[in-house]
């Protein structure tokens, strides 16, 4: 995998909000805030099969997200990569793990039946 500069790694490890961009079928971009978990190698997002981003990724697997440090906005990271795998999460267990990471009550989501984990391969890390 790609090298991640030490100065940027804390932004990936903190429970920060990632703004995840995908490309819509018409070729225009979409951006939305997402929780994620970085396992040291890949980034994982909780998502559902019914949502727009999931459909975007069926046609174009490219994913990019950016995060800024709320305490120091000039400090940011941009991560480029691609959807590597979609893992069903019908028990909502990854969603629960994410909630715990973000300091929320670890309860299963209402839409667990449609839940998936989007596993993103990291190709490039930029930032400041």
């Amino acid at each position, binding site marked *: 995998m790609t090298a991640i500069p030490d100065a940027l790694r804390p932004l990936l490890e903190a429970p920060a909000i990632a703004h995840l961009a995908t*490309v819509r079928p018409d070729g*225009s971009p979409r951006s*939305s*805030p997402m929780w994620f978990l970085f396992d040291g190698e890949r980034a994982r997002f909780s998502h559902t099969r019914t949502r727009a981003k999931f459909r975007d990724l069926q046609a174009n697997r*490219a*994913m990019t997200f950016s995060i800024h440090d709320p305490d120091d*906005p000039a400090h*940011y990271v941009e991560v*480029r990569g*691609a959807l590597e795998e979609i893992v069903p999460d019908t028990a909502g267990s990854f969603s629960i793990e994410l909630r715990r990471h973000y300091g929320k009550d670890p309860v299963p989501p209402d839409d667990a039946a449609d839940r998936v984990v989007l596993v993103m391969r990291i190709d490039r890390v930029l930032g400041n």
Partner: protein
Amino acid sequence: MTEIPDALRPILEAPAFAHLATVHPDGSPQSSPMWFLFDGERVRFTHTSFRAKFRNLQANPGMAFSILDPEDPYRYIEVRGVLDEIVPDPTGAFYVELSRRYGNEDPPPPPDAADRVILVMRIDRVLGR
């Protein structure tokens, strides 16, 4: 122009960070945090004519950004649209205006003023909660 729900308007009016996505010529997205100014109709970003986003927009004018409400991280807005206009900013005046808006008291013009441009985005769709 598109309707902006009243509940989301304060997020566009605050000096928050917009994560602006464009599309690279290879079809993959690019995203980075940006200062911006919403004038009630269009959104303006300060940029330079030599950066990746500028080049991306030459080929694909699609733009989208998302912002978290600094006051309440459960609230956010997603805005989609296209590049409407590129306005030269050779003195960096718009950069300085934005810098002041984001809390810098007496900002000098940017060292890259000669290459500064204003990306003016037309809003086509607003989502959020």
